[in-house]
């Protein structure tokens, strides 16, 4: 049997079911692996060894034959923007350093209820604002494929942890690409669900009209298990939607894919008859040639698997970046108003309440967060609101409309996940705009609220993973997962693991 940490989630489930190993052995193997590589990766902000081992023992004592879907005894990691009771939550920021959430996020709770064991909280750009984890107030995470490079972001800790085989799956969040881009940079599979499909109760808010809780895993099958366990309506999040509600599940034209399983865990076996659109606006000058090449090759392979591929146009794509960098900072400036040194986090000493606000916020927010609060405040301020925020909301309608029109012609959209592979740490230092351009292929789907998945389709000449995206109509995560699964049945990009040049020890 291979090392325990090398096993996929499905393999862990099977092994536990057949008593090949215990949950304690799985958790111990994960913790040991983390201990060995953490000094070179820094994927975690908190490691919950004690509670994880306790829970593992509990699972081992009480294990009952399950239905094959349960997450009983499986170690997972959670991006540190989601609340988990008993563990500190930092959102990668000094402004809530030491905060102990009094409750657990619904998405996490659902996984725990299914038996999953949270072994730690993963690193993130401060308040999920960034594309590299360099904006974390607690240090950068390193890409397991090349530790001089970033893992992407903002869910970089989760992506690195899954890529390095520390955990089989981890939760991330995606506001403008923060699950898909790090998945691409780290060679793992990352699913951003439909806006509203997973509850955000217990998620520290960044851009409330954009934020989605997603999953990073080794392949589509494992991602599907986690996704299914956490999706669904939550009375504690008014924007969460029960996808089984008639009229919501079948938006868009899905004739070809109606043949595909409705349930994400019963994945399809063929792409026969599936119509895949390739938007010409996503193959642009300046992007890394190999990214374009490998994405096109993967699309060609999907065609050979039965998909009907056609070129489409999403004409407002070029405006997505500008829309996003008005709307997301505007929403962030409102959401982050709550961090004022009164109810949680450290407080700067001052004689007046006014000065407490100014000093605490000025001292404790990091530079990217300050920049976005400034930008968002400006866009919402009197005299500029219509020109910036109002216009951005209208252009958002046009971008959404592009997707609605396209999904009348095709079932899925295929495109690159990011213009480049993982860049060097510090490559965008001092130039926020060049960093923002890293998100150019993930922002449109976020603005439209449609689901997307990124999965590995090859490597560049430096041995860095390349990811591509599939996008689907609202609530068609099943189509995304199915198509990815079919591709992963005939390719092995997702099975490649980085060589960390470190003895993993025996598990």
């Amino acid at each position, binding site marked *: 049997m291979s090392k325990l940490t090398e096993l996929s989630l499905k393999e862990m489930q099977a092994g536990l079911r057949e008593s090949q190993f215990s949950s304690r052995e799985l958790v111990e193997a994960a913790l040991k692996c983390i201990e060995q590589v953490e000094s070179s990766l820094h994927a975690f902000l908190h490691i919950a060894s004690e509670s994880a081992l306790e829970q593992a023992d509990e699972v081992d004592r009480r294990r009952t034959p399950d239905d094959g879907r349960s997450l009983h005894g499986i170690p997972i990691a959670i991006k540190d923007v989601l609340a988990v009771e008993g563990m500190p939550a930092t959102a990668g920021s000094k402004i809530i350093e030491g905060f102990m959430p009094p409750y657990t996020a619904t998405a996490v709770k659902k996984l725990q209820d299914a038996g999953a064991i949270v072994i730690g909280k993963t690193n993130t750009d401060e308040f999920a604002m960034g594309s590299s984890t360099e904006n974390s107030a607690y240090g950068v995470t390193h890409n397991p494929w090349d530790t001089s490079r970033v893992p992407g972001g903002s869910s970089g800790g989760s992506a690195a942890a899954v890529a390095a085989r520390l955990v089989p799956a981890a939760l991330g969040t995606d506001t403008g690409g923060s699950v898909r881009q790090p998945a691409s940079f780290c060679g793992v599979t990352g699913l951003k669900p439909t806006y509203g499909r997973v509850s955000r109760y217990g998620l520290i808010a960044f851009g409330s009209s954009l934020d989605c809780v997603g999953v990073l895993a080794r392949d589509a099958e494992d991602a599907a298990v986690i996704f299914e366990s956490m999706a669904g309506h939550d009375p504690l999040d008014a924007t969460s939607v029960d996808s089984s509600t008639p009229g919501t599940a079948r938006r868009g034209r899905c004739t070809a894919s109606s043949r595909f399983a409705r349930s994400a865990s019963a994945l399809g076996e063929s792409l026969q008859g599936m119509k895949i659109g390739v938007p010409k606006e996503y193959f642009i000058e300046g992007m890394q040639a190999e990214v374009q090449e490998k994405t096109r090759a993967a699309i060609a392979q999907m065609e050979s698997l039965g998909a009907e591929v056609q070129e489409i146009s999403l004409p407002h794509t070029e405006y997505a970046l500008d829309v996003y960098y008005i709307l997301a900072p505007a929403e962030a400036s409102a959401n982050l108003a709550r961090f004022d040194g009164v109810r949680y986090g450290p407080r700067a000493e001052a004689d007046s309440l006014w000065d407490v606000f100014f*000093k605490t916020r000025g001292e404790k927010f990091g530079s990217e967060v300050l920049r976005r609060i400034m930008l968002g405040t400006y866009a919402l301020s009197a005299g500029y609101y219509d020109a910036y925020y109002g216009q951005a909301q209208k252009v958002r309608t046009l971008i959404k409309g592009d997707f609605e029109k396209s999904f009348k012609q095709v079932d899925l959209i295929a495109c690159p996940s990011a213009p480049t592979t993982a860049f060097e740490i510090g490559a965008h230092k001092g130039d926020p705009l060049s960093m923002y351009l890293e998100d150019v292929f993930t922002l449109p789907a976020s603005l439209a609220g449609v689901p997307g998945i990124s999965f590995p389709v090859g490597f560049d000449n430096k041995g860095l993973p390349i990811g591509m995206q599939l996008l689907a109509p609202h609530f068609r995560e099943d189509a995304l997962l199915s198509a990815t699964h079919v591709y992963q049945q005939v390719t092995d990009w997702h099975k490649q693991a980085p060589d960390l040049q470190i003895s993993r020890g025996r598990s």
Partner: protein
Amino acid sequence: MPLTPQEVEHIAKLARLELTDEQKARYRRQLEAILEHVAKLQELDTKDVSPTASVSVGQMPLRADEPRPGLSKDDLLKNAPKQDDGQFQIPPVFE
């Protein structure tokens, strides 16, 4: 899109941020670059386009307005930097 130092001061004040002179100069420069980029949005004619505030699909049903247990006062206070007598403690607002 040029910004004056006074505008930067004004934004920082609206956002309740104490910034150093160096930060103000830097954010002024960076915000100008970003605003110049987003000015591209102005080239689109949107007079017949309605704004999108939410991409929620389907209903957002209201839950029943019934009392139910919430977090305890102790839970809510335990993260406060200062508390006294079951309340958040802050410096005086009125002297």
